[in-house]
């Protein structure tokens, strides 16, 4: 009754409002426009009634926003629009109308032919160039939707050809792009191509660009460009307009990939070179271009020309130096000579770069001919865009040509010193990529290692990765490498893990070099017992990691181990097992136990599985409970199986909860409800929700069947909640049931669904009305039939998301002080493994007053770590995708009397996918239940100080 009254009141007040405001002026048009229904009378009326052009434009904008709508009389609307078109004298209105008519193609099942015919009709009468151009672009968009051989398409193409002779560049450009996008590429005998080619000679640079772009478009669509255009295009590389140069460069690049082997004459002499080489040289020249965009593009394109002659390739790094007409060697060459001659640069000579032999004035060529020095210039360019594109290309080319990789090394190392950090990082990354092709010399290594003192963590860690992946030539190299890394550790203790990882891969890739260093590193002496090092000393751990990882490939090292080192091995193997490999230490028995242990777990697991898959017994819950406990313990014991077992345990937990809920009478019957029972059920359902969400969002790398199984469990949980709300509470379940139905519908397409999901899908598709009441009536029997049905299997490859906060460590007792009401940035550094849904990752800050904040980390702060080294070393191990979150969490609070702990943790916030917007107001959800914790919270001591007045 009350509701009725309220509604009536609401309607009344609305009416009053409308009446009150509809009188004055045209301003009222707006509320009318925003009414959702767009009936054709309205359009007709409005379009005819609108008097001023501004109103018309506003209305047209409104229509365009509403597209694509599902009104019935779209055709009528179009007619009206076209009538308006004929009436309007202003070209911008006509332009707008054409835009709208073009957008009609977005309406499903709308007849495109109709639009096309209309537009063509209008086009023949149109005088404004802009409107013409927009019509052509509409036609070209529409033409894309037509089938290949339709006569209408030919008509459009013909129109495009005719209008090429239009005097406006805009029309020409659009015609060219139309031809490029629509021309038939299969049975065309190059006729259109020739015609388009002619327009590359147009006097308007915009038309020239459009013509080249059209050719490119044709190429993308499969039309082979003919070789004869090459000379023309090459001359366009000297065009005055930079856009033309860019498009021409793209064509040259395309041609070089299409006809790499054809021969081209070099002007001025009788020699012939391959087209790919010639094109390469041409693009190299463009690196000295006047425009940044052209230079960037040139640098980008060079990277993919991998089949160019190595001779040309090597030229790109060559720049003849001279000083005062005498040949001079570059610093790289000088360096190389001092290294090979065994003499070290004294560093105390003036002009040790002094020029040597005299050069013949005739033989020096000053403008770079061909590819000469292209990358030298590119890497020295003023703009970082060019430099970073050059780096990419250099790296790409080096990957395909080992000799070039060795040559490019010096230049890459030089780039470590770039002024812009991104470029430095990129240089390190490039180096990492090509590291398997090169062997580092000592002098080069020295320069590289200098960068380890950089204060930027990213740079240092990038370098650690690079060092881990590279190959060193001598024992001395390895030695300085290890020493510098230890220095690095002393200086920046937060790099510990990264350095460990680096030494791990260094050790395993250089076992023989390590062997030579072992006595020195471990201070083993043949006669004297040296003092035993402290195993908690980080730098000692570093050395041990290097040695242990080398020892797995070089058994001789094992014999050098003294007793305390064996002890340390066992300790480290226990504490940081993923850095320490398993070694076959003689006299240590843990090898055998390890093997036994393995079979044990497998056997145990099978045991549990078989118990699970037995036919249902009377106290099924107890069986599951026991199994669940077993599995959780098992996951703690065996790291190999942990992820899959945990998934299984979680699933099991869900089903235990489901069974518990269903067995309690209170969940469908609110009448018999005593308060305590009701709370118990409510709690259980809440737990079930959380558990099923964890199941859904924490695991990745699953097969489709496993995913469906999880989905089904989640559906079951949702169904239970839905039924509970309908039957046992008095809140509205409308939004919830809609959400449920949409979830079910999403499953429709899959074959062989698990039985519960299958049943639901079948039932729901039969259903016409999805009111909560009806739904719950159907769900109840299905639910009851599936209490104990849960086929369990072990998803062996599953990954569970796992986060670890490396910083802050939570050990500090010094409070971080800041002014109350202002913000404090707490540095957070965390590693997250197997994060399947980075978009839901949040940082949760809990204040002592139990306020909690969820902070979305900046996208750029979350980085995927590329693990080159590991994937290369052992390919059979699936590489776990790993994320690194390094951000600063902004904390703020009002003043406290003393310092207190706040808690930082990483969580997944799945409110967005799980709570539809209509549900947000519903009180049944505490926000907390859609938050999945990923790690234990870390406590940080902070103290907001009051603001000092006065100063």
């Amino acid at each position: 009754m009350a509701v009725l009254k309220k509604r009536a009141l609401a309607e009344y007040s609305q009416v009053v409002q409308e009446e009150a405001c509809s009188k004055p002026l045209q301003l009222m048009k707006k509320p009318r426009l925003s009414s959702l229904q767009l009936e054709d009378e309205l359009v007709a009326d409005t379009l005819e009634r609108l008097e001023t052009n501004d109103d018309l434009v506003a209305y047209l904008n409104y229509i365009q926003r509403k597209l694509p709508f599902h009104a019935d009389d779209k055709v009528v609307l179009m007619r009206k629009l076209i009538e308006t078109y004929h009436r309007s004298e202003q070209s911008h209105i006509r332009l707008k109308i054409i835009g709208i008519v073009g957008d009609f193609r977005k309406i499903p099942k709308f007849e495109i032919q109709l639009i096309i015919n209309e537009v063509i009709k209008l086009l023949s009468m149109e005088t404004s160039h802009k409107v013409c151009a927009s019509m052509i672009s509409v036609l070209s968009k529409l033409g894309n939707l037509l089938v290949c051989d339709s006569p209408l398409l030919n008509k459009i193409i013909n129109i495009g050809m005719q209008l090429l002779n239009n005097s406006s560049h805009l029309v020409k450009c659009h015609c060219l792009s139309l031809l490029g996008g629509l021309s038939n590429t299969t049975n065309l005998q190059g006729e259109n191509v020739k015609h388009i080619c002619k327009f590359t000679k147009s006097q308007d640079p915009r038309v020239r660009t459009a013509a080249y772009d059209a050719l490119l478009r044709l190429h993308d669509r499969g039309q082979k460009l003919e070789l004869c255009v090459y000379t023309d295009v090459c001359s366009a590389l000297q065009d005055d307009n930079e856009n033309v140069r860019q498009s021409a460069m793209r064509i040259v690049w395309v041609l070089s990939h299409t006809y790499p082997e054809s021969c081209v004459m070099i002007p001025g002499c009788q020699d012939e070179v391959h087209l790919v080489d010639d094109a390469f040289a041409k693009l190299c020249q463009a690196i000295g271009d006047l425009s940044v965009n052209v230079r960037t593009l040139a640098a980008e394109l060079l990277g993919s020309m991998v089949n160019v002659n190595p001779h040309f390739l090597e030229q790109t790094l060559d720049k003849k130096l001279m000083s005062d007409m005498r040949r001079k060697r570059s610093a790289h060459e000088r360096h190389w000579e001092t290294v090979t001659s065994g003499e070290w640069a004294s560093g105390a000579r003036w002009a040790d770069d002094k020029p040597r032999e005299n050069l013949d004035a005739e033989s020096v060529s000053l403008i770079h001919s061909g590819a000469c020095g292209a990358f030298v210039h590119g890497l020295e360019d003023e703009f970082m865009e060019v430099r970073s594109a050059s780096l990419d290309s250099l790296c790409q080319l080096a990957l395909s040509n080992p000799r070039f990789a060795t040559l490019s090394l010096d230049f890459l190392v030089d780039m470590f010193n770039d002024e812009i950090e991104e470029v430095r990082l990129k240089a390190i990354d490039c180096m990492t990529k090509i590291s398997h092709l090169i062997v580092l010399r000592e002098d080069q290594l020295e320069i590289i290692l200098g960068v380890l003192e950089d204060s930027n963590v990213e740079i240092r860690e990038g370098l650690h990765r690079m060092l881990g992946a590279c190959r060193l030539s001598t024992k001395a190299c390895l030695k300085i490498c290890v020493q510098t890394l230890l220095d690095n550790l002393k200086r920046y203790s937060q790099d510990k893990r990264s350095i460990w990882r680096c030494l791990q891969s260094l050790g395993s890739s250089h076992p023989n070099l390590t062997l030579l260093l072992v006595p020195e590193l471990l201070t083993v002496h043949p006669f004297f017992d040296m003092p035993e090092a402290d195993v908690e000393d980080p730098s000692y751990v570093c050395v041990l990691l290097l040695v242990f990882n080398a020892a797995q490939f070089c058994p001789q090292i094992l014999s050098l181990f003294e007793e305390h080192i064996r002890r340390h091995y066992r300790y480290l193997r226990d504490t940081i097992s993923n850095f320490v490999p398993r070694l076959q230490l003689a006299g240590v028995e843990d090898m055998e136990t390890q093997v036994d242990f393995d079979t044990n777990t497998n056997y145990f697991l099978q045991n549990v599985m078989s118990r699970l898959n037995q036919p249902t017994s009377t106290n099924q819950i107890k069986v599951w409970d026991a199994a669940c406990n077993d599995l959780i313990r098992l996951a703690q014991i065996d790291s190999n199986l942990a992820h899959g077992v945990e998934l299984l345990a979680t699933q099991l937990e869900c089903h235990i909860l489901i069974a518990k809920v269903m067995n309690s009478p209170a969940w469908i019957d609110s009448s018999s409800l005593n308060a305590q029972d009701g709370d118990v059920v409510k709690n259980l359902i809440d737990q079930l929700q959380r558990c099923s969400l964890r199941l859904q969002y924490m695991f990745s790398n699953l097969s489709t069947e496993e995913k469906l199984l999880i989905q089904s469990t989640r559906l079951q949980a949702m169904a239970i909640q839905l039924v509970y709300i309908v039957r046992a509470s008095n809140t509205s379940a409308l939004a919830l049931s809609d959400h449920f139905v949409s979830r079910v519908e999403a499953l429709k397409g899959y074959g062989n669904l698990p039985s519960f999901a299958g049943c639901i899908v079948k039932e729901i598709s039969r259903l016409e009305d999805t009111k909560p009441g009806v739904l719950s009536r159907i769900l109840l029997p299905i639910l009851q039939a599936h209490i104990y049905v849960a086929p369990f299997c072990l998803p062996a490859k599953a990954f569970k998301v796992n986060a670890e906060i490396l910083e802050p460590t939570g050990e500090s007792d010094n409070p971080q002080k800041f002014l109350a009401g202002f913000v404090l940035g707490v540095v957070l550094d965390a590693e997250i493994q197997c994060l399947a849904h980075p978009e839901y990752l949040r940082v949760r800050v809990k204040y002592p007053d139990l306020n909690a904040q969820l902070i979305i980390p900046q996208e750029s702060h979350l980085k995927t770590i590329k693990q080159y080294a590991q994937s290369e070393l052992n390919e059979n191990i699936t590489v776990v995708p790993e994320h690194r979150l390094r951000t600063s969490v902004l904390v703020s609070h009002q003043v406290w009397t003393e310092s207190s702990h706040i808690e930082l943790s990483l969580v997944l916030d799945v409110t967005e996918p799980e709570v539809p917007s209509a549900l947000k107001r519903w009180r049944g959800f505490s926000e907390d239940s859609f938050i999945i914790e990923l790690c234990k919270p870390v406590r940080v001591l902070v103290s907001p100080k009051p603001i000092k007045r006065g100063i």
Partner: protein
Amino acid sequence: MTDIKVTPLGAGQDVGRSCILLQMGGKNIMLDCGMHMGYNDERRFPDFSYIADGNLTESLDCVIISHFHLDHCGALPFMTEMVGYSGPIYMTHPTKAIAPILLEDMRKVAVERKGETNFFTSAHIKDCMKKVIAVTLHQTVQVDSEIEIKAYYAGHVLGAAMFHVKVGNQSVVYTGDYNMTPDRHLGAAWIDKCRPNILISESTYATTIRDSKRCRERDFLKKVHDCVDRGGKVLIPVFALGRAQELCILLETYWERMNLKAPIYFAVGLTEKANNYYKMFITWTNQKIRKTFVQRNMFDFKHIRPFDKSYADTPGPMVVFATPGMLHAGLSLQLFKKWAPNENNMLIMPGYCVSGTVGAKVLSGAKKVETENRQVIEVKMSVQYMSFSAHADAKGIMQLIQYCEPQNVLLVHGEGVKMEFLKQKIQQEYGIDCYMPANGESAYIPCKPVVPVDVSLSLLKKEMALYDTVGAPDPKRPCRMHGVLVMKDNVLRLMEPEKAFGELGLNRHAIRFTSCLQLRLPGSASRAMDQIQLILNSQNTNYPVKPSEEGVLNLESVSIKMESTDKEDRKSMMISWALQDEDLATWIMSSLRQVIV
């Protein structure tokens, strides 16, 4: 009249005292007005009497200063205040800000230290600067009704610019000093394809191709770092402005990156003032500084502090920048005396040293140096030479020529022998003329006279439309334009005939020729016409043959009509054409004759 005359009053086959006189289109323009640092007599200033005795305002239209180095602007106050010139002077904003600081400093040294008389005063500098008009990059400035100048980025020092000077149809680009490779605080020189008649380029490094800058920088940093690590003191003698800033930025960022704590001192009095200007003119610096200045202005040095003389004896590592650059006097020499005996210390010379100075002696490896008061210093500290020069090398010069595509090149600001080589190369590789006049010698560069004609826009559009409708563009097809050339008030204009006649108040007369051909063609007249149309179409692709009603064929202004005569197969063909299509008509007649008659 069409020749351009260039006379270097300084910097012709020489470095220092840049001053180039440019005469073109009846205008006299002075490019730079520098002084020679090597002389103390009247030779240090350009010989202004060459231009005129006494007041120069009459004979000069404007003066353009490329950058603030004294060899490019040092003589300016002398010229404006003492010789007398009150015309416009152009320079960029940073140059206008920094040049007076340098001028004042030089004046102090000359007057107060060396006790010279007859030198300009501070007031003169002030008055001189009042006459300066500051320009922005890429801003076109109209000096008078004919002279137009435009500044481009030169990258040599802050505010260095190249100037494009245009008088009428002739134009000259003067580069000043420029640098084609970017450095730590400035970008590279850039110019668009302006195709001037002459490019006047500096050629300091005409015979050098330089190595990548990165190696040098890395070496420099590594050496400083090593020295600081072992607790040594590093002395870097610098000239006041320009390279000092680059080295500061280099060290500052390195300190930041490597998290170093050793202090860096800066002991250059006048640079502090200049540093403020560096902070202000961020738009003139390179990409990195421009991008990051919102967070932190790179010239707001965190690690670099002003030097106090008491610091010289403080123990522990430090890096000190001190003037002068050649160790011949002042603070740098004092510090050198103090620090030289310790082998842990290091001296880094970032630039060239004139022979005879302490710097040059030390660089050439002398272990014992004698100073002015017979005091002998033992040099145990390590001595390094690092060249950080901001001039374009030979490749850079060639690249600039390629960028702006001049018709002639004129080399200044370099040694004659080296220029000779570059001149050859330019002629050989670009095929353009190259000049290198010595001081006081004039180079006359001939230019093709250009006669400008104003074309009326409507005519141009009409003809364009005609051209466009014919078909795809074809560079080989000539495009004729029909119009009337009108000479009036010394201006040539190409106009539409109707307009021209209207303007001149004349009646238009058209001449048409008519001719008659007797042909032997069977069939009716209309069939014959079709046949002729076919023939013409097959032979002629450029002009479409349009049949009109009443059986007349039209081809441009040529119309062809056929009439049957009494005899069956004899037809008389009448051709009529206007004067402008004489050629076409002749061609039609002859071709028809060949085929049919």
